[in-house]
């Protein structure tokens, strides 16, 4: 009960802290317009007018991924800058329980990117929001956001250890967009990317949303996204304990 309360209070407060950042708010306003535009022009030029909604959904998932990636990395780095990383890590709790609310909060704030991309697509480009399976779409979106939050815990473990976490976050953004098939179908990518894509929760989350949008077997993809995310959560829990110890040995919890 105490653990659930900690997760809930922590998630709410971190979401509040992130959503009050002028930088985060500006990004949240601008990036979805850019992504919606990108998706629309990409698909129009490819002569695939009928798949515009699918494109907007893919662009929205890109936004969720960016939010989790930069949120997890950025939040850990921000906490290091503002001196709170040491304060929360020295609480008598499992390190993963302290970090997980931060990554889930980034997933929740990332939901805005998905919704905003769809809204901008509708407003600016007249994309009709006709989902093949509307209920499945909502479930898939929730699973995708929570799943990415869990994946974020695994990423955050690295960010706790590295003082220059932002550098790693920058290099991971585009490869995961591509490999997960958020915008470009995985089938057009080289064969070696297939196994990489298969183990990423982002691949299955994006596929579930696409299938809910244009029709297809949504639930197996949802189940795979959730399953892989739970494995990430488990591994994240195990790794975070070790990482915290290494960070204390390497003195990386503080700036200097």
């Amino acid at each position, binding site marked *: 009960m105490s653990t659930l309360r900690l997760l809930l*209070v922590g998630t709410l407060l971190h979401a*509040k*802290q992130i959503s*009050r950042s002028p930088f985060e708010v500006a990004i949240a306003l601008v990036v979805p317009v850019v992504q919606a535009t990108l998706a629309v022009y990409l698909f129009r030029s490819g002569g695939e007018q009928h798949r515009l909604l699918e494109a907007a959904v893919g662009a929205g998932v890109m936004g969720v991924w960016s939010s989790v990636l930069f949120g997890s990395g950025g939040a850990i780095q921000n906490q290091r800058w*503002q001196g709170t990383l040491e*304060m929360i890590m020295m609480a*008598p*709790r499992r390190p993963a329980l302290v970090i997980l609310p931060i990554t889930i909060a980034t997933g929740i704030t990332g939901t805005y990117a998905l919704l905003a991309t769809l809204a901008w697509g509708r407003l600016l480009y007249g994309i009709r929001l006709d989902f093949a399976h509307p209920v499945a779409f909502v479930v898939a979106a929730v699973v995708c956001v929570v799943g990415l939050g869990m994946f974020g815990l695994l990423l955050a473990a690295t960010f706790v250890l590295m003082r220059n976490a932002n550098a790693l976050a920058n290099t991971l953004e585009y490869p995961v967009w591509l490999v997960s098939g958020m915008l470009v179908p995985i089938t057009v990518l080289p064969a070696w990317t297939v196994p990489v894509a298969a183990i990423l929760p982002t691949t299955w989350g994006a596929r579930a949303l696409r299938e809910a949008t244009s029709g297809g077997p949504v639930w197996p993809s949802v189940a795979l996204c959730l399953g892989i995310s739970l494995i990430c959560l488990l591994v994240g829990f195990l790794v975070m304990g070790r990482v915290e110890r290494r960070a204390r040995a390497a003195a990386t919890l503080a700036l200097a």
Partner: protein
Amino acid sequence: MGSDYAIEADDLRRTYRARTGWLKPTRTEVEAVRGVTFEVGRGELFGLLGPNGAGKTTTIKMLNTLLIPTSGTARVGGFDVVKQTKQVRRRIGYVFGGDRGLYDRLSALDNLRYFAELYGVAPREQKRRIAELLDLVGLAGRERERVEGYSRGMRQRLHIARGLLHSPDVLFLDEPSIGVDPVAARELRRTVGDLAATGTTVLLTTHYMAEADELCDRIAVISDGCIQALGTPAELRKHADGFRVVEVEAYGVPDTAVDTLRGLPGVRETAVEVKGALQLLTVHSDAHVDVQGDVLRELAGIRLGRVNSREPTLEDAYVAIVSAA
């Protein structure tokens, strides 16, 4: 607590290793703490004094589990800081000076609620405890304002409230009065004194001698990563026994004149503190040698202000200890 002592440090050492550059990496090592040993009794208010870079914060961070010692052992409340981290963390609070360490975009109440959850304060206890602490630190009525609008003093008081949420047995205060105005600093000293009076063990680091003198039962002077002296303020003052101090306010003293003063018979130490246009020249000498006349003779032709000859204070003792290190 099972142990006789609240804090035990035995030959603590900490080396920081850093690597810079990718193609031709350069490795650097800094030995921040080199074998620190001391004990702090339960309910004692213990001071750790030292110049910048002496190893005070590193020592505190090893004791409060934020850093793993390179070697040596430490126990807090009888629990090993490396092997029994969780038990140690339940029993300690940590407050440091400065602007950092709080969620600026949240209110004081949000900050305290979050840390109350992190420290496992029972939900039905939280409201009462938070209200009690807001009263204690004088932030009642301002708790719903965002921390980013707080003054340095208010932030510092919020830090203290946060550190006390779970009623820790041991409180680590790392330069809590840094940048705080004199009135707020006095309030802070009163709060710290009250905490120690009610049985909380306090380990305090500070640059302010008067603060250490007023508050601490015992003080360890740390310099260059080692403890140079340890004792009650009265015992430490004895390090300046046999000294006499001459203070001269002057304007435009050249370095050469200071060097000449250092060479005068009976002079042990000289120091110059610059306060705007004014230079405060402090000359430590053997008590049986009257150096005032010689000092004034050497400063002939230089515009002087107040000249004062006095008994040494704890600060003079501290300077003598650190200078001898």
